[in-house]
């Protein structure tokens, strides 16, 4: 299965780290943006199957993106990747419609486990 992926994180390092551990040949379209507003702009114009979303970001943060997507009934599979490792953060993003939560720094094992869990591979 090939899919279209959007990575949204303000850190270049975090974007590259994730890009590097994505399963080879899995994403046939990979877009990278650096804040929530840019993510929404992409989501309005390009068909995205899976969004990897950071939480603390300038301009528009990840919580706000989730709320906007929920309010506008944009049904996009979203996995949050964040350094906010409080259990409450995971609960909040899942309540706001995210599929799952992966803590930073992300590992390949954690990513694959979550992708398998949601049958995304």
């Amino acid at each position: 299965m090939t899919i279209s992926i959007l990575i949204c994180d303000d850190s270049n390092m975090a974007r590259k780290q994730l890009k590097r551990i994505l399963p080879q040949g899995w994403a046939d379209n990979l877009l990278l943006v650096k804040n929530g507003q840019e993510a929404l702009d992409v989501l309005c114009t390009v068909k995205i199957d899976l969004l990897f979303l950071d939480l603390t970001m300038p301009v528009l943060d990840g919580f706000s993106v989730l709320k906007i997507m929920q309010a506008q009934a944009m049904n996009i599979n979203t996995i949050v990747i964040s350094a906010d490792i409080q259990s409450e953060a995971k609960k909040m993003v899942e309540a706001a419609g995210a599929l799952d939560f992966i803590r930073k720094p992300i590992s390949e094992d954690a990513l694959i486990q979550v992708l398998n869990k949601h049958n995304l591979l």
Partner: protein
Amino acid sequence: MNSGLNFTEDQRDYLQEICNIGMGQAGQSLSVLFEQYVTLSVPSIEIISAINLVPTLKRLIPAEKISAVRQGFYTHVTDPNICGESITIFSNTDFEQLAQLIDLDEEVTFEVEQEILLEISNIINGACLSGIAEQISERFFSTPPSIIGQSIIIDNLLNKEHLMWDHALSIKIQYSVDKYSFQCDLLLLMPDSSVKYLQNVLNRLAGEL
């Protein structure tokens, strides 16, 4: 910003992300202390060389009254890869509110304020340093914290001789709990050799990606 250290954009970005991970760990520890969710904000970092330290800190920390706690850190006792001193600076701290968050019933005396300062700075400093250490495959040891100023004006901190290091990495942190937010700055003061070592590690990380 005037760093004089030639941090590349990548090095800066990586350092910021590493600090971000440290701050997330500190937020987790604070949420346990406060028994509440702690809202994190993006930490902003600056790398400052000693010659610009005082004017830069005055710009970064405009608070009238600050309190500060210092703690030494090092990777090895002899010939450490990285060593230095961290100073956690609290701006215009409302101790009454912090005491409420921590659920302290007693009257907020000077001594209780000291306990609060030591406790919170220890959490922030410890989590941030361990987050950084983990990312750069090191381990930091710390000396016990001590208070170097309690509700003083910033000039009184900056004039002290303990700011005699080559460089400082300043990390501005803001945590909000419920309707209350508190701000602090974590300064990691380091000699030239430690900053160069850190830059090499950042280059290696960049090369791996």
